[in-house]
């Protein structure tokens, strides 16, 4: 009995450590794919797919920097990707194995150039903006029909927030998204890396802090959909998904998303292969599968995020491609800003300030 147990344990340890050629481990954001695609991938390629999810770039980054994460494909956002490339966390892509890369959208490739020059280490999966989601009925009930739902004044003016507090406001727990928004509202450069400039936002945050129910980066989807909160500052597709979930539940909740008119952060989630991926070949097969216009269109139609695939556009649903909240028009696109990673000293100051804002200490 004991002996057979030992053998089993040893065998499974061996299996876990061994790179099986017919297996690919993907680590992606939560609520970020049409799960039907996962089955389709396994059927088409015969490769076993192990799919795990995370809800913060920080968790992914720590796993990557610790080394030996065991994942073959990961999906960091642009700024994090840039830093991780510098740390040597990714292997260069072999474009000979990625014939579908010809479908990529040059506009998005040009914008992601800052993070990953020449797309040497990553391909774009989805991109979106960070903005304001509102429960239309509740917000107009509180602030009247002229409520500034497309302006950062909704969340940064204490008099608005004081009234919204009762119906619930959630903010992202992501300082790298919140400080640029605050700086944009103050008319400063959202991508400022100067700790003194960033510190100027403290007063504004402290004034509205008592009215924020929670800082969290994924709970707001359900909270908005259930009508538990009326305002969330979050990611475009997540808020649109909340609206879609509410519609499906037929609970009468109507959700609207707006990229703030003062400027909105445009971000890119990039698929990359860790330097120590056990199965880089299978990872390339997965990336190529994702860049198939039909597959990435199915993903976008499901998660309500725009993708970086030009050829997928004709296959998108009208309420995805036709929605300026997902595929912004020229005017909105011009109003979007991007950010670059904080150097480590600024990062410490930013995290510390964020803790101070959240906890008062």
């Amino acid at each position, binding site marked *: 009995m004991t002996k057979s147990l030992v053998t089993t344990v040893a065998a499974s340890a061996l299996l876990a450590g061994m790179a099986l050629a017919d297996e690919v481990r993907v680590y992606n954001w939560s609520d970020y794919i049409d799960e039907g695609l996962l089955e389709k991938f396994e059927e088409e390629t015969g490769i076993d797919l192990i799919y795990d999810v995370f809800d913060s770039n920080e968790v992914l980054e720590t796993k990557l920097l610790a080394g030996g994460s065991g994942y073959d494909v990961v999906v960091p956002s642009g700024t994090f990707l840039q830093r991780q490339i510098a740390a*040597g966390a990714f292997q260069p892509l072999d474009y000979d194995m990625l014939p579908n890369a010809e479908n990529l959208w040059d506009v998005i490739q040009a914008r992601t150039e800052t993070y990953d020059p020449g797309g040497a280490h990553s391909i774009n999966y989805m991109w979106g903006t960070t903005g304001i989601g509102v429960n239309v009925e509740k917000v107009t009930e509180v602030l009247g029909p002229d409520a500034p739902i497309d302006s950062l004044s909704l969340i940064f003016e204490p008099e608005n927030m004081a009234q919204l507090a009762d119906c619930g406001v959630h903010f992202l727990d992501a300082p790298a998204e919140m400080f640029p928004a605050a700086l944009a509202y103050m008319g400063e450069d959202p991508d400022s890396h100067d700790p003194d400039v960033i510190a100027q936002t403290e007063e504004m945050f402290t004034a509205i802090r008592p009215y*924020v129910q929670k800082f969290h980066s994924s709970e707001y989807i359900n909270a908005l959909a259930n009508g538990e909160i009326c305002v969330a500052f979050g990611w475009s597709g997540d808020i649109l998904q909340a609206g879609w979930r509410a519609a499906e539940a037929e609970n009468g909740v109507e959700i609207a998303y707006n990229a703030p008119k003062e400027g909105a952060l445009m971000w890119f989630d990039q698929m990359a292969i860790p330097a120590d991926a056990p199965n880089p070949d299978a990872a390339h097969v997965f990336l190529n599968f994702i860049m198939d216009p039909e597959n990435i269109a199915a993903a976008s139609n499901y998660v309500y995020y725009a993708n970086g695939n030009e050829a997928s556009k004709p296959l998108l649903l009208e309420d995805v491609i036709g929605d300026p909240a997902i595929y912004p028009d020229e005017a909105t696109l011009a109003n979007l800003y991007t950010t670059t990673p904080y150097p*480590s000293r600024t990062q410490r100051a930013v995290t510390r300030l964020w*803790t101070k804002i959240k906890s008062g200490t």
Partner: protein
Amino acid sequence: MGRRLLIAVPYLWLLALFLIPFLIVLKISLSDPELAIPPYTPTLDWREGWAGFTEFLSQLDFENFVFLTEDDLYWKAYLSSLQIAALSTLLALLVGYPIAYAMARAAPEWRPTLLMLVILPFWTSFLIRVYSWIGILSTEGYLNQFLLGIGVISEPLTILNTNVAVYIGIVYTYLPFMILPIYAALEKLDDSLLEAAEDLGCSRLSAFWLVTVPLSKAGIIAGCFLVFIPALGEFVIPSLLGGSETLMIGKVLWEEFFSNRDWPVASAVAVVLLLILIVPIVLFQRNEQRQREAEG
């Protein structure tokens, strides 16, 4: 020989699962952060032999511990964690003692069943049990619906995302660790001692205070340590049930490790936490030993 081997087993265990990991953490706490895999420097390179080792040692310093004293965040977080852990322990004792007492007084044929019921929650994942409290405590949750339904309150109570929810979560999670040792102590209690006390003119209440409580002291102390120690470093419960103002050292450690990517400072925070915990652990050990000596 066999006896020595037997003694060596727990020491090997301690060496492999405590001392070596601690030395690794201590080593990292003396390093500097760097953008690399792993994200700190220096790393030990055995290939360079003794010279490499001394070179490595010379690069270590106590800078990160000095840093902890410069920002009041850290000691406030330690203090707040101590407070939350201490109050949770007290609450768990107040709830757990009557349960353990009732179990020990129950008819002997019922005791295994009652014991089973206390252990039963462990069959479900800890995470799921904490998550279920979100469903109970939220403004739209079962507790508020119930209280609104019977008309006790007219506005839903805000419990979730506050320290109150953290206390509920900790007390709920660690309650069995309080009940079991107290039950073990009470079960051994000789009933004739209580009879003697009553014969000698003690009321039932004073017999409880003068006989039962002192005799269950060992169980109370063991229970308190078993709740206090894990509660102090608790991370999951405050992050799921607590609000942003809930300041606990586990969360500060998380921020250092994940948001700042500063493993050296995170390790320094962990080392200090361990030093704080060593005090109650040593007290606990000493108490155990004294107990054993007293029992002969």
